[in-house]
């Protein structure tokens, strides 16, 4: 890593003197490092490549602020973070602009969303097919109205374990009901 740093500094010094080949090599190496950095932060590949190109342009524009007396990578990544923030600011502003207010949404569900094929009472009968602990958890949560945290406190389990057990129970019930 240290030898890469020294190499990049040396390339940049030569680039500042007008060495086109050194500059091309420097930008190529910078693009490789930037691609790895940006693609971890921007999922869309085309957008990530656009941001890499913006950063390379910014490096070109700001190269007079680097004099070769300090490491190249922190200077380059400072510019990269700046341009990444610009991209994210514009990206999220666009998403906000394109968002449709809920009251204007035209999606109309094709059935009543509160309609339930099964009631709690009808499901209760299926609990006996569940392991005891899962049945107890669902009974406490749905019949007696306790939260997962309260159930955990009552039966001496961790809250996360209660949630996992409830999730497994729902999965099992769903499979059973789908098979009916």
């Amino acid at each position, binding site marked *: 890593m240290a030898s890469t740093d020294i190499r990049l500094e040396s390339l940049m010094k030569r680039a500042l003197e007008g060495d086109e080949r050194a500059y091309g090599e420097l930008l190529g190496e910078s693009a490789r490092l930037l691609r790895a950095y940006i693609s971890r932060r921007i999922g869309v590949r085309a957008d990530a490549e656009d941001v890499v190109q913006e950063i390379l342009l910014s490096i070109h524009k*700001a190269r007079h602020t680097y*004099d070769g007396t300090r490491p190249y990578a922190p200077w380059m990544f400072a510019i990269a973070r700046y341009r990444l923030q610009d991209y994210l600011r514009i990206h999220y502003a666009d998403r906000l602009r394109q968002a449709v207010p809920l009251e204007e949404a035209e999606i109309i569900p094709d059935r009543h969303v509160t309609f339930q094929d099964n009631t709690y009472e009808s499901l209760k009968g299926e609990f006996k097919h569940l392991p005891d602990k899962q049945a107890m958890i669902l009974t406490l949560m749905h019949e007696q109205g306790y939260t997962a945290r309260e159930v955990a406190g009552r039966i001496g389990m961790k809250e996360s374990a209660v949630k996992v057990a409830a999730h497994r129970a729902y999965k099992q019930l769903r499979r059973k009901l789908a098979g009916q």
Partner: protein
Amino acid sequence: MMQTDQLIAQLSRDAKPVRALASGWLLVRWLIVSCAYLAVLLAFYGIRPDLAGRLRSPLFALEILSLAGVALASGLSAVALSYPDLRQKAWQAYAPLPFLALFAGVLVAEWWVDASPPEMGAHHTYQCLLCITLFSLLPAILMLLQQRAQATIHAGWAGAVALLASSSLGALAFRLSEKSDSIAHMLAWHYLPLIGFGLVGVMLGRKWLKW
């Protein structure tokens, strides 16, 4: 957008030699031009006749020295902030803080002592603020132009410190001409407005220093 390789090839062809200005020289250049400007203004306004005597007062001397420290440290910070990586010396960006603390302490001490002689000359208020604005004008323009020619990634902060540096330098120079020593007057019309200059600098920086 073009392929990255094509962009690299194009940028390489544009690789003219570039001379990076040393940050020390940016600060020195700003100081030299600003001090020359302030010297001309002071020649016009005149230095207070009792300056030598007042400098023998420890609090007054400390006020002048700490304000000079604020101006110099802010100038250093403004130059550092004009680089994307702060020249990898982040401490320079925070350099004004200890001097601001010292300056604030001196002002509190002066208020506590309350040994200010009665105001000399005619009563004046907002005129001092206008004068300090005039004294700060060229240093502020020069520092902002310098920063704009660089590549700051902290536009608001850089602008704030640029105007703090310029206004504290202007306030320092004007203090050498101002005949009043009333701490209340100093605070109201000379020193508290420096905060306002800083806030204006934030707005100017965000508008003008982005690249």
